[in-house]
């Protein structure tokens, strides 16, 4: 690393003794880009919607990483990090170009990996399942009025008529008029997505919160593997040929 690209703030922190969570956080390469010292000016807090309603502060997040105090980090990892709205207002306004939102994102990843996120992700099963089995993240069927009573009486009307309304709207647009997913992604596409999750190590991580989902995805992949791998092989050969 050249003298010019060294970050004196994170260098200093790295040389101090830190606990397990702290060390895991510092392994994420985004931290170097997200922390350039902190003036404690509070500009981030003044702009933070989560700080307006929760016991959460982006200033505290930056100070916490600079201090490296394991107890405070653990407290954040177990609860407070889930209050952040990920709006990046802190990053936009910070005079030091810090990004507490990115630090929080690194911490959320670690919280999941370390098995600290079960409570925070309760109620998240349906989204996770859709991502891993359908190739997209939301479906009209999920927006049932009983799940969203605060969205008002018109939701009930929309929910009962959604099939015919969508049919009218998407006439002539194949793949768009579906209600169990956002659009009808092809089986091969879903398989590619699942393979990305598996190859990147992300699927294994899902197992720390939703172990049954890993079983579902692996069974789904096994069922399709022969046909899909043959297609991938064709694609590989085509790519190789194009390089020659």
């Amino acid at each position: 690393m050249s003298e010019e690209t060294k970050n004196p703030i994170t260098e200093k922190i790295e040389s101090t003794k830190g606990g397990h969570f702290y060390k895991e956080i510092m392994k994420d390469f985004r931290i170097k880009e997200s922390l350039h010292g902190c003036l404690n000016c509070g500009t981030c807090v003044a702009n933070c919607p989560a700080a307006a309603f929760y016991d959460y502060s982006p200033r505290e997040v930056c100070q916490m990483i600079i201090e490296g105090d394991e107890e405070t980090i653990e407290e954040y990892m177990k609860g407070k990090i889930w209050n952040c709205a990920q709006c990046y207002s802190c990053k936009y306004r910070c005079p030091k170009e810090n990004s507490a939102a990115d630090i929080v994102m690194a911490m959320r990843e670690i919280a999941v990996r370390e098995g600290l996120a079960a409570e925070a992700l309760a109620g998240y099963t349906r989204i996770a399942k859709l991502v891993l089995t359908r190739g997209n993240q939301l479906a009209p069927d999920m927006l049932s009025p009983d799940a969203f009573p605060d969205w008002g009486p018109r939701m009930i009307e929309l929910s009962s008529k959604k099939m015919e309304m969508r049919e009218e709207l998407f006439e002539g647009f194949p793949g768009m008029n579906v209600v169990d997913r956002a659009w009808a992604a092809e089986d091969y596409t879903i398989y590619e997505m699942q393979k990305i999750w598996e190859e990147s190590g992300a699927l294994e991580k899902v197992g720390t919160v939703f172990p049954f989902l890993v079983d579902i995805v692996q069974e789904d992949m096994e069922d399709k593997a022969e046909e899909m791998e043959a297609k991938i092989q064709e694609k590989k050969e085509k790519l190789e040929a194009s390089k020659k």
Partner: protein
Amino acid sequence: MSYEINDVKTGINHGKGMNYHVHDIRAEMKKLEEEGEIKIAHLIGPYKEEEVMYGIKKRVPLDMHYQHKSCGQCANLPGVPRSNFYYRDKLGIKYYNDMQQTSCTAWNYHASGLGNLVQLASVAARNWHRAYEEGYNFTIHCVTSFGNYLEMRHLLVGNKELRDSVKKVLAKLGRELVIPEEIIHDSEIAYALRDKILASADPKRLEGIKGLRAVEHYGCHFFKQVSDDIIGGKRPIVVGGLASTLGVQMEEYSKWFMCCGFGFRHILVNREFTRSAQNIKLKAIKQEVDPDMILVNCTGCGTTFDKTQWIQKVVGEDYHYPVVFYSQLAALALGAHPFKEAGLNFHVTPVEPLLDKMGIAYN
């Protein structure tokens, strides 16, 4: 050439030895392309240059649009993708609505921490590769996807370790790393096409739009996550720019910057936060402007503004501001049926009073 600006340096100094240079990421990409590290999906067909931060020019493709869809829009506000198709049909723009694309999975990532950077970047690169192999320019409907793809491009260009990991995953799919020359949100395209939309608009519809008063709200991931490659720079202009071209009177309000309260996870499991943030935004909008509509470009914000007005009755407020996406406004100007072609009947906050005011029949 857009690369001429690259050598401009700022005086920003974050401490000993930390000099930050303002540079155009396109130049970094060009360098990596020359070294054989990445491929660039160069723009296909005509384009229009628009300014981003520091006067850097972003090239907006005007034809051959790969439609990278939004799962939130398709499921919840389907009138938005339909309007995106509609204005392209009317203007004779060729587009491709691919069923071999996946969601960007960034909503999931920011909400839950499930996934990791290699997964997120590989999903991005797989979708980019789909547009490349089909011969289209990659364009994006969703603001969450847009912010995510800007970030993934930044991380992939800046970090060899991540790049190598993603290349390995892509190789197992028979794909390669091809980064689009421009990461473009659909609202930036509609803005670049504003004069063409105006010229092709139905005069009767324009008469109805003229003088409507509106406020705009931009998704945080449109301009705060990665701020330096957005048309207009740090204060976005695309939605208001398009709307005012069509005759809408755009109004300012003090809370324009504030997050809508979507929060990725909050809209699902902590909606008391969402409702409280909305209360602050809506109160300012009502007291300072009391507009005919709220114009948006973001899936999450459109959902939040539309779905969270009714419940404000519990704190004694009565809000009824129709929420309209930039492309729905463009589609209406071009003559779209408000329900059958612009899908405004999928919105929970009633749009009928607005349509009455515009003189547009809906039954």
